[in-house]
């Protein structure tokens, strides 16, 4: 799916370039319409993307190498719960994705976390869910058993 997003982003970039180079007339209007159409395509693709995996994270950097403290916090929290396999998308690699996901989620900042296609929130919300125990329950709804439950069992 990453390649789909990248290819969509490439189309957006080329569309944007064409829009800038042409004078403001008929062809430019067509180019603008194409640009808008491709932006709409990205929104549609995001709609599918967030449902494709149980846990989806839009972040800065990657889980192996986060590039932002807040994104890193999300990665660490998920790791604590034993959630190591999830879809993550690096918005620093793709400006259209970065802006598109903010529009899609109606959320102004990164990171952004989705569970089963539903927007959960950013770092603050995930942290509070972790602290108050809600995250264990939400993962259960995804048929994911939090590693903390096993850790608690072992400590007893």
């Amino acid at each position, binding site marked *: 799916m990453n390649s789909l997003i990248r290819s969509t982003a490439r189309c957006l970039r080329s569309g944007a370039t064409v829009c800038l180079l042409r004078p403001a007339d008929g062809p430019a209007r067509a180019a603008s319409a194409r640009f808008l159409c491709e932006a709409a395509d990205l929104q549609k693709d995001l709609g599918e993307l967030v449902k494709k995996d149980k846990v989806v994270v839009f972040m800065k950097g990657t889980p192996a190498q986060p590039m932002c403290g807040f994104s*890193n916090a999300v990665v660490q929290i998920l790791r604590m719960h034993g959630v190591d396999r999830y879809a993550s998308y690096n918005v620093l690699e793709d400006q259209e994705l*970065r802006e598109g996901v903010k529009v899609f989620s109606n959320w*102004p*900042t990164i990171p952004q976390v989705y569970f089963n296609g539903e927007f959960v929130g950013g770092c603050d*919300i995930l942290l509070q869910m972790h602290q108050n125990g809600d995250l*264990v*329950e939400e993962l259960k709804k995804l048929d994911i058993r939090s590693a903390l439950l096993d850790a608690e069992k072992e400590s007893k």
Partner: protein
Amino acid sequence: MLPRVPRSARHVAVCLSAARPLAHFRPHMDPDPNRPVETTIRTKLTDKFKPDHLEVHNESHMHAVPPGSESHFRVLVVSSQFAGLPLIQRHRLVNEALKEELSSCVHALAIQAKTPEQWGTDPTLAKSPACMGGSKGDQTVEEKLKAGRG
């Protein structure tokens, strides 16, 4: 009954969000003419939420942005308007109140949105995680910094 988060995990979580000593608590933070964005944020959140308690912290110095920037903020809003609302709704309300700033000069906004009862039970300000340099050389952040200086 929710399963309890084990102590070890909570300890780590505390490191991620260490409580600030209450000695740092300032009941009213006076607006600073040299910090227009911070002042605007405080004004908008006060007008919208009529908070029992409000803290607005410029955390830009903790990030890879020039000194004096107003790009990264942490806000704590204690308001009865949050009663009965899930976290995401509360945060969306705060985002909405600061929509203009978030689309121009503010690059990061950490939010704590509590009811007076929750604040009474747990009067702590969370601590932001260490910067990992993502803002350095980030074109979007540079544009936002310019917007803030404009």
